[in-house]
Structures are given as C-alpha cells and as structure tokens.
C-alpha cells in the first residue's frame, strides 16, 4: 500500500465553530492506482487531497504514506515528501504569475537542490513531453488554460514523484483541453504513477479504473470498475 488512511478525521475550526470536513474515513491505495474522487461540492474532496499530499495534517487517525506515519514527520521531512514524492495539480493552475513556463517547472528542481545544468535538461525534457517546447519562455498570462494546466502537470512531474494529486484539473478548461489533460494523466499512469484525480465530470470519472465517492465527509462508495 502506498497510501493507507485509518479513521482519518479533519475538523476545521472557525472561531468557536467546529466543522468536521472528514469523518473517520478509511482509504487504501495501491501503487499504480488511478482513482477518481467524486462527490458534491463541500463533501471534503479537497480536504482529503491536502491530507494525502501532506499539505495538511489530520485532526485524528493514522496516515501511512509508503509505510511512514505522516504525523511523525518533521516540517522539513514533510517539505521533502511534497517535493520528491508528490506532484500537485490544481484547478486554478497555481503557477507563479511572474515566472515563465521554464521557471515554473524548474521550481521543484530548485527546492530539490538539482544542479543548474541538470535542471535545464530536465525542464526541457518534461516540457517536451507535455508538448510545450515552444512555450518555454512564455508567462502564464501568454498561455491558454489548457497550456497552463500542462505546465502545471510538467511542474508536478519535475522530480519524478510516485504520486500525482490533481484537484479538479479540468474544472477551468473547455472539454477539448480537458480531454487532452485526461490523456496526459493516462499516459503517466501507464508509466507507473499512482494518480488521484478529483473531478465533477462523470464522463472523466467513468474512464478511470477506480472511483471513490465522498458525501458529507464520509466515503459513500469505493470500488474498482469492471
């Protein structure tokens, strides 16, 4: 198991008001899984993804990432997990607006301490893979949504992480660009990555081998397609 969550709860506190976004959920993912997380808005999908990605810690429960208990990791160890083991893709792309495509993809490599020459090679290689060799020096504002999301995927891939987490990656895209993004994920999956995609789109979810359905902070259904 690459991901093993046992009785995970996440409670948000706003002032005196507590809100349980996740309620003692259990989830296991195998290496090489390709999972769609679906559910209505506010059901806790993003919360779950932030926990999986070690961007946030659960209020209760155990989370073993590749066999290591996440709550025992130091702040620096968590940073390293996010840097090397996990690649994030967001609905809002979350590219640095003032940086070029090259510079955005380079960022995780910088944090990993990769040497300048190797960084350059890697960025070129990966931007070519997502079909953006010619947009290397473009800033996000000079690109279409589909292109921005491909830069974001290239960035998520920079340190060749085992897990890709995508939170509604097609939510801001037209269906054609969205389909291209889904194709990219499929390719990555074939190369052995574990991929988790949050989506509203039933058509997309239907294409994936496994679907986890959330509702009101609980897992409603969890199963493999035939």
């Amino acid at each position, binding site marked *: 198991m690459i991901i093993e969550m046992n009785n995970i709860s996440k409670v948000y506190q706003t002032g005196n008001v507590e809100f349980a976004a996740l309620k003692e959920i259990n989830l296991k993912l195998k290496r090489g899984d390709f999972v769609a997380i679906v559910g209505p808005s506010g059901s806790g999908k993003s919360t779950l993804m932030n926990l999986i990605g070690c961007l946030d810690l659960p209020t209760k429960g155990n989370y073993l990432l590749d066999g290591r208990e996440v709550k025992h990791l130091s702040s620096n160890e968590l940073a390293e997990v996010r840097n090397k083991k996990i690649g*994030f893709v967001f609905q809002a792309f979350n590219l640095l607006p003032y940086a070029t495509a090259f510079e955005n993809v380079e960022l995780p490599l910088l944090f990993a301490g990769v040497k300048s020459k190797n960084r350059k090679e890697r960025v070129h290689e990966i931007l070519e893979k997502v079909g953006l060799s010619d947009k290397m020096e473009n800033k996000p504002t000079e690109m279409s949504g589909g292109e921005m999301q491909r830069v974001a995927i290239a960035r998520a891939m920079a340190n060749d992480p085992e897990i890709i987490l995508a939170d509604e990656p097609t939510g801001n895209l037209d269906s054609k660009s969205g389909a291209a993004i889904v194709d990219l994920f499929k390719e990555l999956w074939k190369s052995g990555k574990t991929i988790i995609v949050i989506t509203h789109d039933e058509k997309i979810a239907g294409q994936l081998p496994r679907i986890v359905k959330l509702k009101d902070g609980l897992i409603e259904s969890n199963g493999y397609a035939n």
Partner: protein
Amino acid sequence: MKLSIIISVFLRDFRKQKKRIALTLLALGWGTISIMLLLGFGEGLQKQMTLNNKGMGENITILWGGRTLIPYKGMGKGRRIHFLPEDAEYLKKRVPEIDLIGGEYSSWGIKLKYGDHIFTNHVVGCTPEYESMRNFIPQNGGRMINALDMKDKRRVAFIGLKLKEKLYGDEDAVGKQVFVNSMPFTVVGVMIDKLQNNSYGGMDEDVFVMPATTFKAMFGNQYLDNIVYRPKNVSENRLVFEKINEALAAKYKFDPNDDEALSDWDTIEGSREFNNIMLGIKIFMGIIGGLTLLIAGVGVSNIMYVSIKERTREIGIKMAMGARKSFIMTQFLLEAMLITFSGGFGGMAISYIMTESFKRIPIDSQVLTFLGRPTISLEIGLIVITILSVMGIFSGLFPAIKAASVNPVESLRYE
C-alpha cells in the same frame, strides 16, 4: 538547502517586484543621507573647532599670578603674586615633566611706525619657545625670534599677518625696519595665516613680538605678564600644574591650597571638555539620523508585510512544491536585507558625493571657518553600515517568520 539556490530563486522573484521596492529605496536612501550628513556635519564641526582651538597652541597652559586669599606664614591675604623672568627656568628645573616653558610680557598702546603708516598696537616680549607652544610659525623666508636675539637683546620683530598688511601692504616685510616708540626694529619674520578662535590678550594676526630680554630692557617691566608651558605628557597636565603650584608657592610663600594665588587656563582640560561636548552633539545627531533611518526600517518591514499578504498564494505554491520553511524565511530576510542595503549604499554614495563636492566649492565665509564642512569618515561609514545591517535583519525577520507560517492549504484554497 544550498544558499546559491535560495539566492537564485530570490533574485528571480526579486526582479519581478521592482515597482514596490522603488519607494522604500527612496525612504532608505533619504534616511541614510540624513544620518550620514548629520554625523558628517558633527565631524566637520569638530575638526574645524579643533583646528581653530589649536591656533592659539596645542596642549598649553597659560599661567597668571593672582591675589592670595589665605593668610600664610604671617602674611595677610590679598597679596599679589607676580612672576619674575627667571621663573620659567626655575620651574623647568623643579618640574621635569614640563616640555616647554616661557615667560611673556605684553603692553598695549605702543606706537609702531613704518614710513607714514603709524599705529598704536599691542607688543609682546616672549621667548623662542613660543614658536612651538603658541604656533608662532614664520612664513617662508622669515623666522621667529631665536636664542641669540634673546641673548643680545636684539631689536628684532616677528609680526602677525594682519599687522604686516597694515604696515607694509603687499610689500615684503622681512628685513624692513619698523619704529617702536621711535626705536628702530628689524622685522625678521611674518606669521603664517592660521585659524584661531581663542586667545588671551589679542589675536595672533595682530601681534608684534620681540625678544623678552629686549622688551625688558626697553620698557623696564619688572614682572612677566604671564607664563606659558606645555607638559611632556598630555595626560599629566594636572600633575604638572600641581607641581608648578607647589614650586611657586615655595618661592613666593603662599599656601599651596590657595586657589586664588595662581590662575591657569589649561587648554588640555578645555579640549577634553570640548571633545565630550562634541561626542554629545554627535550622539544627538546620530540619534536624529538613526530615527529617520528607523522610520525607513519600519517602511521596509511594512512593505515586506504587504508583500507577504500579496504573495501568500506564491508562498503556498512554493510550500506545495516542497520549499522548506527556512527557505521561505531566508528569501524574505534576504529581500529585506537587499532592499535595505541598496537604499543604504545608494544613500551613502550620494552623501559622499555631496560632502566631497561641498568641500570643493570655494566659499570663503565666516560661517564655514566656524562650522567647518561636513566630512564623512570611515568611522561614520562603519557606524551607518552597522545600523543598516541591524535594521535590515530586524525589518526582515518578523515578516520572514510570518511568511514561513503561512498555511499552504489556506493560501491555495480556490476562491
């Protein structure tokens, strides 16, 4: 994480935030300029005052006889103490800590005449030691009175620059005759132009100096008007005075504890006090400049806070991509330091150029000979750099801590 990586990310981000930085740079530059110029002004003032103070002579004490206040060995109070010409020699033997000493006569209202230029002037009879003690330094081509003049009671004169101009105009004075109460004297030297802001018995530019022996022979004065001496060691000034006081008390039979028997003007003590006052002025100016700079520092801090607010998403993205907290902190700290130092060094450069060009402006004013011109010393430079570093660190530290505590989930939540 390697510093080089932090710096390269930082430089990249920094280049993109130009606009925000310009204003702070201005405030910092202004703060630095004001602290530099205030300190520089203090320094210039001190230099000028020191120079002016030295005009009368460095590290000298002028000694006058007073009137006793304490009855002593059967003698009543109110007795006048007068110095005799041989007292200088006597004191030099009794007090080996004296470097130079000499007695002085002076008389006002003496008629000087050269051609049809006639003046009543102040005439001084003194010893060759005055050349060094009182900075009676001759211009090229002339000399001060010497030991031979003293011995032979020569009628030679050493005159101040202004007096020379009054008597001789543009003519060369050395070798010329001058009549003192109808007695012919030869001018052997003219004093250099010097700055002087304190004096006893007239400014040196007006002085007419003759050998003390000549003076005594000519005017018949029994007593010296005063004695001037300089201790070998500046730090022993008070000790030397105590010893002189004892020696004279023994000779003239007054109570050594009688404060009124002698009166002294100790310029060493005076310059010590002066230096303390100057230190006070400098500290004051430093505080004013420092406050200006502090305001600029608050500006840096403020801009960093605003910058963090505007860049929480950027911080969140970096954290999601695996940046450590220390990386985020260092980045903001570096940014604050870089802003501080760019503004600071800019201000320092401008202040330096300002003071240097001010030095070159040929203004000949009374104000400047009193106030001097602002001077920037290495010391001032180091003080300002230290202040800037401390400020840079402090104005960056708190924003940096705040930046590192940004919650990535919060900052990345999609609105």
